[in-house]
């Protein structure tokens, strides 16, 4: 049976960008974009990706009707089966329904063209499911780590997946900014969840050492090490993300994926803390925070964990921040630095410099932090 690939195009993705709207979320923005003369580009990006998937890939395609995939597959001359039909103007709800229909029809991978808003809808459709997805960048905002660098790279990766050369996956961040705030000139990104993406091993081809590095094993080793290193009587604030979740797993605790949990002596003190909770909990000099790195952007503060406000960070003290990230995540960032964006320029300046980042059992790397 050929490998089943779901093809999904968000036809309106990216329309706001060309006319200066910094996003395309919401019917009103879209109407405004059309008035300013915006034309859809997402289908063209998907076509570029499919063209770059080298011929001969043994795949069958599932898609959604009309502009959501059917048209581009027809234009590319690829046979397909439409498993969902949108009614009229497409919305985020159509993305959710189309993804679920492809999953129910046996898709083994969903390739979608869109932006951060589309990634959020795909994430909402799949929840915690293991279904891998691959993003073709077509949106105005691409903060999520679920997108290939270019449509062509997505196509090349797709063909390698179909050929069975790249079946390993890792969880990647779905990020989005508040578009209203962005249009008003403020950047305020949030972590909305995780999608499972194929690991692009273009930078890690060899197997001289006999084994192969696995993101999941590396993250698990980080969790085990940090749990092992915890000191009795000390309070640990475990930040958001899959890397830090591994610490909770190593402790046998149920953590909050997108929130901050407080742990002491192996016990959960408070879950999903607010900034106010953290200020109340922090014991000066006896509290550490465990943070991770947002893939693709390198932020350790200011994206994803707004609870770690400047007030919280000052109460903690910069010396008490423990940063952890799997080697593959840091390799992908190389040579870019890690970044902080707390909203307090003076605090950001204090946090800049070189810090050790925990990368595995007893292992860390020095990394440069910049604003």
């Amino acid at each position, binding site marked *: 049976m050929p490998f089943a690939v779901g093809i999904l195009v968000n036809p309106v993705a990216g329309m706001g960008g060309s006319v200066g709207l910094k996003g395309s979320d919401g019917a009103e923005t879209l109407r405004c974009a059309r008035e300013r003369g915006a034309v859809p580009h997402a289908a063209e990006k998907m076509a570029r990706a499919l063209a770059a998937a080298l011929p001969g890939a043994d795949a069958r395609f599932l898609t959604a009707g009309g502009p959501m995939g059917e048209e581009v597959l027809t234009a590319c001359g690829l046979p397909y089966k439409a498993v969902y039909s949108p009614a009229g103007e497409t919305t985020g709800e159509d993305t959710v329904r189309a993804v679920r229909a492809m999953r129910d029809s046996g898709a083994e991978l969903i390739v979608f063209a869109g932006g951060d808003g589309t990634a959020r809808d795909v994430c909402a459709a799949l929840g915690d499911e293991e279904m891998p997805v691959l993003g073709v960048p077509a949106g105005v905002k691409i903060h999520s780590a679920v997108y290939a660098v270019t449509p062509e790279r997505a196509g090349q990766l797709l063909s390698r997946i179909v050929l*069975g050369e790249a*079946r390993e996956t890792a969880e990647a961040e779905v990020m989005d900014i508040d578009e209203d705030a962005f249009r008003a000139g403020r950047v305020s990104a949030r972590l909305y969840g995780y999608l499972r993406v194929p690991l692009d091993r273009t930078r890690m*081809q060899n197997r001289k*050492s006999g084994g192969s590095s696995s993101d999941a094993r590396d993250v698990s080793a980080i969790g085990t090490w940090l749990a092992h290193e915890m000191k009795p009587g000390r309070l640990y604030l475990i930040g958001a993300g899959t890397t830090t979740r591994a610490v909770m797993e190593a402790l046998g605790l149920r953590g909050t994926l997108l929130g901050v949990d407080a742990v002491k002596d192996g016990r959960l003190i408070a879950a999903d803390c607010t900034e106010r909770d953290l200020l109340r909990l922090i014991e000066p000099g006896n509290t550490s925070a465990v943070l991770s790195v947002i893939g693709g952007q390198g932020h350790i503060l200011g994206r994803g964990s707004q609870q770690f406000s400047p007030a919280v960070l000052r109460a903690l003290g910069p010396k008490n921040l423990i940063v952890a990230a799997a080697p593959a995540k840091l390799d992908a960032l190389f040579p870019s630095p890690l970044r902080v964006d707390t909203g307090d320029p003076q605090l950001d300046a204090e946090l800049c410099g070189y810090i*050790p980042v925990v990368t595995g059992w*007893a292992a860390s790397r020095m*990394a440069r932090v910049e604003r």
Partner: protein
Amino acid sequence: MDTIAQNRDTRLDRFHQASWNEPVIYELSKPGERGVLVPQLPSETAAAAGEFGELPSGMVRAQAPDLPEIGQPQLARHYNHLSQENLGVDSNIDIGQGTCTMKYSPKVNDRLASCPKLADMHPYQPDCTAQGILEIIWRLGGLFKEISGLDHFSIQPGGGAHGILAMASVVRAYWADKGESDRDTIVTTFFSHPADAACPIVKGYKAIVLPPDAEGLPDLEAFKAALKTGRIAAIFMTNPEDTGIFNRRIAEFTRLAHEAGALCCYDQANANGLLGITRAAEADFDMSFFNLHKTFSSPHGCGGPAVGLVACRSALRAYMPAPLVEHDEKRGYYLDFDLPKSCGKVKSFWGVAPVAVRAYAWIMSLGADGLKTASETAILNNAYCMKKILAIPGASICFPEHQPRVEQARYSWEGLKKDTGFGTADVQRRIADFGTHYWSSHEPWVIPEPFTIEPSESYSKADLDAYCAVLAQIACECREQPELIKGAPHNSTVHHISHDYFDDPAKWALSWRNYRQKYDGYFQPKKK
């Protein structure tokens, strides 16, 4: 390959490797077949010996071991077929295995190492009956005194990573003796061998890895910050690193490390560009190790047996693995076990003697000037290959701001990937069709589409031309014949295989028993 060099327009793809399609030896097994019929005791001898003619019942297996049963001619064929389906330093221009210092091992040295006077010795012979080999080991140490500038030597470690483990063991014994066991952290660099972090971690240390700066040198500011993160026991560094870049600030690193109280350990697994040019002692290292199976021409032996010779300053002699080989007028050459502060043994017995003999013979045959010429030739060969490879469209060198390289260089096919979609894994598969191979890199994977070429002094200009022509040909095929690249290798023993089986511990099988545990039949995984 030599004929390729002479006539490469027509001969490039004429190679075809043997592909015997032979089952694994367990499947060739036939119950009752034997390669050797072991003679039984003559009846009168057996009668005279009585119960002493038989093995004690406690030593006899109740069940025969699960070994293949096969006749001698079939066995000989089996091994010959395997050897034809293999690739080695004596069957190709082996310059693609960068960082490993593949060089020719003169056959005469094998004869010395396998002569009965050495091969038939037993490690439990008294020192007084082993004066010859002990003298060779002791003299080998004397040569390394010149090569490294350090004072004492052990050939006990059985390989390169084992040499690092031995140095980490000495570091641990040293700080335990000084009452500073709270020094719990070591520092290494991105492009040192990953074992420079891994082995100290095995010894209970935390390891901090330094990134390179824009020029590709270990980041000095990051190093200063790392020294402040905790109590540093030692630094473990390669120089030149796997990129081929020599850290010209190395004396600054060892100075800062010493100021922080740390010991300085040098990974000279590959010293092939430095012989007679620069030494561990002048860079102010306290310890170093050398792979006798790389720079010093003994074969790698597919993972051993080998020697990672450890050298140290006098101040660290007390902590070295015991015993050390020593000499005095009265006792002659002897094994000195009187090292009460020693880190202990790091391996059974005293070191792999044939490897020490080959290295000794190689060094003595070249002499001091010859060693320097070997290194200079390796550097020249590398510079020549760089020129040829960087002329291939799509190839580039990592850290181009730092052009000079020593004995090897790490390149990138990033441009080729951008143009054609084919990268280093594709080139690696296709190169098997030309009867040779190359290696990409090990972690950290920060150089896109990497490959690492190290043309040691063994190879002629014609060899280097032939190898570089193969790379150029493949890069050209990536642009003009994508189908050819996609299906490669075509002329090798095995063809393009799914990586799924290497990435999944539930699927890979390293032995027949392992295979049977995991599989019902060919490529039908029992469990995910």
